[in-house]
């Protein structure tokens, strides 16, 4: 009864929060740190939609595997001897022991330490010690007692996603219009992307949604949060005023933010990548870059995967070096997440560029990054003060651009979705929250 009342109360709080967002462009601060809301997110978002787990290049060879999670569900992402990728629930079918206990490796089989059940990396049950003594002359039905696969697994441009909902829409549909924009991150070469080593991982006492909504379109925070890097000559812009121009994109459940570069500079990508980019992207995509001198910087794929495309200086007075980082904001509970952060580079990029790009990334993003350090400070601070009672009636302003800025007419913007011709606006952030409430109230 108490449980039911609590669920009903949470639902009422969310309904009012959704109304306030839709009608008044404001957000109830409580959503950033509330156990009952977190439980609903786990059920209605993380068990229902597509969740990014790994990049194919992390497991290039037969037998390679990495260990990943969807909140508390541990999954082995393995490539079998035939090259097929499997996502397997990491729990033995006998007494439930965690089968695989290392972050990554290469194994044709997973052997349970408890009683010795052994499974192939396809999930098939392969060996049961003293089978006849334990289960009779016929032994066990090995098909019935295979490892449990994730209900759905699909791959988009090398990115492996899983869903716990067998009825989820195809991944291609989930990505939808956003695919056109993901190409700028993932298809600058026909060779595709690869990760630079294993991900950085660190724990932040901060809500995952703060990161997702920041990456979907928050260009506004840069002039304040990241001012130190402008002053120190890490972010090579002449003045913070430079940052005010951009284009915010809403595409499906997702979004991104385009920013300008000096015409002809292409974020300082080496000529070989500028060349392959022009071959690999389609005509409309190339024209968009060439005519406007813009590339997408930050993007979020709902709910908790983000990308960043940036270019920063590594040495005093040095040229900016571009990079792409992929990250997952993995919820660990109300107000707490583990961040997973990878650097991606074009597989056929020059080796010295790969090294420089990775250094540019880790100097500025990741746990020690001179920009991300300050994001972590902000997101932890918001989460901390959202824990109390007053955040239950404290509303936050999400109105930038509302009623003031119109979308770019369709015939003036080549990409799909909706494009807004500004940077310091909240359209993409409101879109994130509308998508979020739609999931929770469904």
């Amino acid at each position, binding site marked *: 009864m108490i449980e039911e009342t609590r669920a009903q109360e949470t639902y009422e709080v969310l309904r009012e929060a959704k109304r306030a967002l839709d009608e008044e462009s404001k957000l109830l601060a409580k959503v950033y740190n509330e156990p009952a809301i977190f439980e609903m997110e786990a059920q209605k978002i993380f068990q229902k939609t597509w969740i990014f787990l790994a990049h194919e290049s992390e497991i290039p060879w037969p037998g390679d595997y990495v260990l990943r999670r969807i909140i508390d569900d541990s999954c082995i992402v393995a490539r079998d001897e035939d090259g097929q990728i499997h996502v397997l629930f990491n729990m033995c079918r006998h007494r439930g022991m965690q089968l695989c*206990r*290392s*972050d*990554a*490796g290469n194994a044709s089989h997973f052997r349970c330490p408890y009683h010795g059940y052994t499974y192939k990396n396809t999930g098939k049950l392969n060996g049961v010690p003293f089978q006849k003594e334990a289960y009779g002359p016929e032994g066990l039905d090995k098909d019935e007692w295979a490892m449990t696969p994730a209900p759905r697994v699909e791959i988009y441009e090398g990115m492996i996603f899983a869903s716990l909902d067998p009825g989820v829409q195809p991944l291609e549909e989930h990505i939808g219009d956003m695919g056109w924009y993901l190409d700028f991150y993932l298809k600058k070469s026909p060779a595709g992307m690869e990760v*630079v*080593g*294993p*991900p*950085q*991982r*660190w*724990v*932040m*006492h*901060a809500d995952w949604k703060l990161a997702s909504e920041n990456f979907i379109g928050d260009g506004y925070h840069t002039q*304040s*949060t990241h*001012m*130190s*890097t402008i*002053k*120190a*000559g*890490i972010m090579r812009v002449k003045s913070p005023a430079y940052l005010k121009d951009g284009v915010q994109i809403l595409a499906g459940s997702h979004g991104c933010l385009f920013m300008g570069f000096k015409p002809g500079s292409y974020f300082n990508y080496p000529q070989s990548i500028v060349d392959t980019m022009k071959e690999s992207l389609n005509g409309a995509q190339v024209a968009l870059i060439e005519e406007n001198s813009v590339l997408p910087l930050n993007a979020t794929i709902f709910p908790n995967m983000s990308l960043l495309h940036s270019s920063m*200086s*590594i*040495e*005093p007075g*040095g040229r900016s070096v571009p990079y792409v980082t992929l990250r997952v904001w993995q919820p660990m509970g109300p107000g707490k997440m*583990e961040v997973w952060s990878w*650097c991606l580079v074009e597989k056929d990029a020059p080796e010295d560029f790969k090294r420089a790009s*990775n*250094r540019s990334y*880790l*100097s500025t993003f*990741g*746990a*020690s990054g*001179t920009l*991300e*350090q*300050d994001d*972590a*400070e*902000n997101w*932890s601070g918001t989460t901390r003060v959202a824990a109390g009672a007053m955040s239950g009636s404290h509303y936050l302003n999400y109105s930038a651009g509302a009623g003031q800025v119109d979308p770019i007419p369709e015939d003036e913007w080549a990409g799909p979705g909706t494009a807004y011709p500004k940077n310091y606006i909240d359209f993409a952030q409101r879109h994130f929250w509308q998508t979020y409430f739609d999931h929770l109230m469904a």
Partner: protein
Amino acid sequence: MMIETSLETYWEVYSFLMREAELLDERREREWLESCITEDVEYLMPVRENRERSEGAGFSDESFYFQETHGSLELRVRRLETEYAWAEDPPSRTRHFVTNVRVAEGDEDGEVAVKSNLLLYRSRGSEPTADILSAERRDVLRKQEDGWRLRKREILLDHSVVMTHNLSVFF
């Protein structure tokens, strides 16, 4: 590795490590950079994975939390000197506990190879809990005209998931 150098060298190296820890705990990063670090320094903290025993300690040779040169350390220090480095303003209260110091001859003349254990205590704001990071440091020190300096540091974390919200302090 045991103590393989003269007592005098050991004592100089030990004093260097103590002075360095003091500078860092007193937020004197500029002084640390200018008086303790060589121009050709390599300052590394590799990502560590939890791997099976047969595969070694799990340190990556591709992924790093820090992969610094003197120039990139300079940019990090410059950033701390602005008024906008929110991650360290108000600053963390840190304490570098440096123990188990072992010193051997280095590969080059005038250099020594130093191993030490580091426990870094970090407390921020009015949080009731503090973050503690544990690591082994493998250093190469070079004796210059003005004394010992850090030529190379590998910070080998005892964590596969870093249990602090950012790495805004030096190790």
